[in-house]
């Protein structure tokens, strides 16, 4: 398959691994920020073939996992209001909030619809003029333009019954927050390929320049990830800290300017609450004042009881900060499995616990 199989050649992969081994002398901790990378690394057994000097840590890059309990509680509260249809992406359904989950509510008869795209949510609004359709919008910079577009489209079509509960998050501020927490010593970031397809390479510059941490934007096939690790190790060994792009076939330095313009039209940056980390300044998107008639936070007076912490024993917070490996959680694979997940990191297909469970702990 074009743009896929070429980057899966096992003979070439072996060569890249040998070269990583050859140039790596000093121990480094490299963090993959994106959940899709966590899956790619686990699935292809990349952790297992690394030299002893290279440790790969998983970061907070799964939007489902980092959604705070309180925000899930709010989505559930909204879904329960009469005359409301709540639409969201499938991954959000099973994640437990403080008191319930969207799928448990749906089983109770609450009108919650899983959609593949925001355009499907608009269609639901079109088809149900007597109902209020709320889209529970989570996701990083990759997904937020698709939500922004749905708002522009709703205004264009004159839809009065569509709104968004916007809980979008931005990756570079979260990377900086992890560095300032100082809990883990990092020597390089494997930066997310599709977030960067939208934002470009510039937003990572301050991480390289001010924090002195090498950043390489990576594709998702095994050879992409291996080449990225090689590039990061090379920078670390040379004492450099730059932003490099491995995933050049998709990432332009300026990003996707059409998408960025749309984001800028609809959203403004705000503080956001991350599970396991807390409030990170300027790390989220909210709707601009001009779009408040599409803002579920403004249209409804949401009232939820104070959120509860993660279930006892669940280490998702530490896993999202790269402080613990999934297998270091005492519930991992015992009380907590993908069939009976306890925390979001096991629920989401891109969660670190689910990836380690499915493909081995390496």
């Amino acid at each position, binding site marked *: 398959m*074009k743009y*896929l199989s070429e980057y899966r050649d096992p003979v070439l992969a072996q060569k890249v691994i040998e070269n990583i081994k050859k140039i790596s002398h000093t121990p480094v901790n490299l963090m993959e920020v994106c959940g*899709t990378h966590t899956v790619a690394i686990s699935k292809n057994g990349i952790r297992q073939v690394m030299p002893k000097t290279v440790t790969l840590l998983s970061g907070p890059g799964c939007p*489902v996992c980092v959604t705070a309990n309180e925000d899930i509680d709010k989505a559930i509260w909204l879904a329960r209001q009469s005359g409301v249809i709540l639409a969201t992406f499938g991954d959000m359904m099973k994640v437990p909030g403080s008191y319930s989950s969207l799928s448990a509510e749906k089983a109770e008869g609450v009108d919650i619809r899983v959609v593949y795209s925001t355009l499907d949510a608009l269609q639901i609004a079109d088809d149900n003029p007597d109902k209020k359709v709320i889209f529970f919008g989570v*996701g990083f910079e990759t997904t937020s333009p698709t939500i922004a577009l749905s708002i522009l489209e709703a205004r264009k079509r004159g839809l009065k019954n569509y709104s968004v509960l916007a809980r979008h998050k931005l990756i570079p501020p979260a990377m900086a927050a992890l560095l300032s927490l100082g809990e883990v010593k990092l020597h390089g970031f494997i930066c997310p390929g*599709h977030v960067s397809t939208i934002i470009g390479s510039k937003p990572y510059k301050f991480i390289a320049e001010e924090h002195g941490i090498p950043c390489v934007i990576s*594709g998702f096939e095994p050879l992409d990830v291996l080449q990225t690790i090689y590039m990061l190790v090379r920078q670390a060994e040379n004492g450099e800290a730059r932003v490099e792009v491995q995933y050049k076939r998709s990432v332009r330095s300026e990003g*996707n300017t*059409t998408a960025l313009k749309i984001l800028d039209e609809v959203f403004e940056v705000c503080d956001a609450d991350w599970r396991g980390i807390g409030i990170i300044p300027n790390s989220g998107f909210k709707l601009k004042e001009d779009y408040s008639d599409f803002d579920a936070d403004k249209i409804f007076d949401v009232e939820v009881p104070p959120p509860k912490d993660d279930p006892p024993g669940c280490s998702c917070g530490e896993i999202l900060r790269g402080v613990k490996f999934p297998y270091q959680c005492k519930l991992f694979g015992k009380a907590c499995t993908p069939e009976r997940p306890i925390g979001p990191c096991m629920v989401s297909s*891109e969660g670190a616990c689910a990836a380690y469970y499915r493909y081995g702990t390496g």
Partner: protein
Amino acid sequence: MCLGIPAKIVKIDERQIAEIEIGGIIRKASLQLVPEAKVGDYVIAHAGFAIQILDEKEAQETLKLLEAFSEIPE
């Protein structure tokens, strides 16, 4: 949920909705984020939208760089 997959554009309608082919399966994706995309282009599809056109030349360059690993003497 951030999964993005390379897909080939096979058809575009007047509302900028494309039929895209992913491993022999046809799906739909909006081209509003890549208005310049044409039939035959490969795009990254994510949550019902194409988010970028893949750059053939850059793809070849990356492969060339990767292949150079084989030539580094032992």
